[in-house]
């Protein structure tokens, strides 16, 4: 398997910035001046580099990462057993729902895995019932979180 995608084309400054901004983007009036101070460049250079990383798709989004439970949202991880010949169709139906944030095909007999969040518990129940009736897939297990040991999406961008 190939490694790296566009990683080989990252400059030293870009690598530093990526490592930095994935933990925290400065929340202040002049965030690019602050970023420049952190990594050793000017405000304009920091701004241009971040713009370029966004345009190239290496940064998907800059924004708030909220705790959905704290906001009162109901969430679930759901796994489905989908026959291979229906896979594309079922995956497409699941992806249509706005509250579905991740939807992956994975190895194994439970082969479609998705996460969903809705503003209220009844909304979540309604959407899951709707997915079940539209896809006709009965083998669907819900895997709600009962304890969190670690939540982190920061990964070191090395050489």
């Amino acid at each position, binding site marked *: 398997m190939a490694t790296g995608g566009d990683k080989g084309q990252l400059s030293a400054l870009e690598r530093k910035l990526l490592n930095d901004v994935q933990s925290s983007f400065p929340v202040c009036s002049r965030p690019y001046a602050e970023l420049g101070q952190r990594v050793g460049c000017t405000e304009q250079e920091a701004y241009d580099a971040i713009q370029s990383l966004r345009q190239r798709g290496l940064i998907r989004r800059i924004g708030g990462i909220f705790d959905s439970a704290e906001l009162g949202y109901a969430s679930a991880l759901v796994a489905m057993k989908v026959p291979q010949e229906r896979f594309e169709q079922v995956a497409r139906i699941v992806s249509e729902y706005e509250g579905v944030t991740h939807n992956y095909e994975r190895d194994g007999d439970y082969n479609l895995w998705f996460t969903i969040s809705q503003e209220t518990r009844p909304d979540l129940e309604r959407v899951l019932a709707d997915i079940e009736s539209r896809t006709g897939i009965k083998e669907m297990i819900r895997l709600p979180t009962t304890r969190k040991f670690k939540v982190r999406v920061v*990964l070191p961008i090395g050489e």
Partner: protein
Amino acid sequence: MECSELDKKIINRLSGDLPSDMTPFAALAGEIGIDESDLLATIEDYEKREILRRFAAVLAHRDVGFVANALAVWHVPEDSVVETGEIMAGFDEVSHCYERLSYPQWPYNIYTMIHGRDREQCLDIVERISAATGIRDYRVLFTLTEYKKRSMRYFTEGRPRI
């Protein structure tokens, strides 16, 4: 927390993408219709109250070199869940570690998201975790196709949630 209409508006904007602007928070505050200083103070307050985990960039991990990720699921005896979960969470390559509901046909109760540069590296990490915890009943579920991956957008108006 109880969200006011203003909170919902702010959280909705913050869960989107920051404007491309040299002073992005001033631009965002303008869109919301509040002062920049109030917006900055509100973000700080959300962070303090742990409603906001962090304000940061979300990277396309595949494109910055983490081409493989695996969900490893572990069948851990009930009485050692806490101890085992903490050991697993201690691995740098594990980004998420949760206990989840299990079923007779799916007895796996601890879920670890593992990131590596390729499948081999992910499998090595899984073996190290197995050795460190003594858990032998597990499965490694690689992502075959990513159909959707996005950040949650909260309090979308109009609510056409389907």
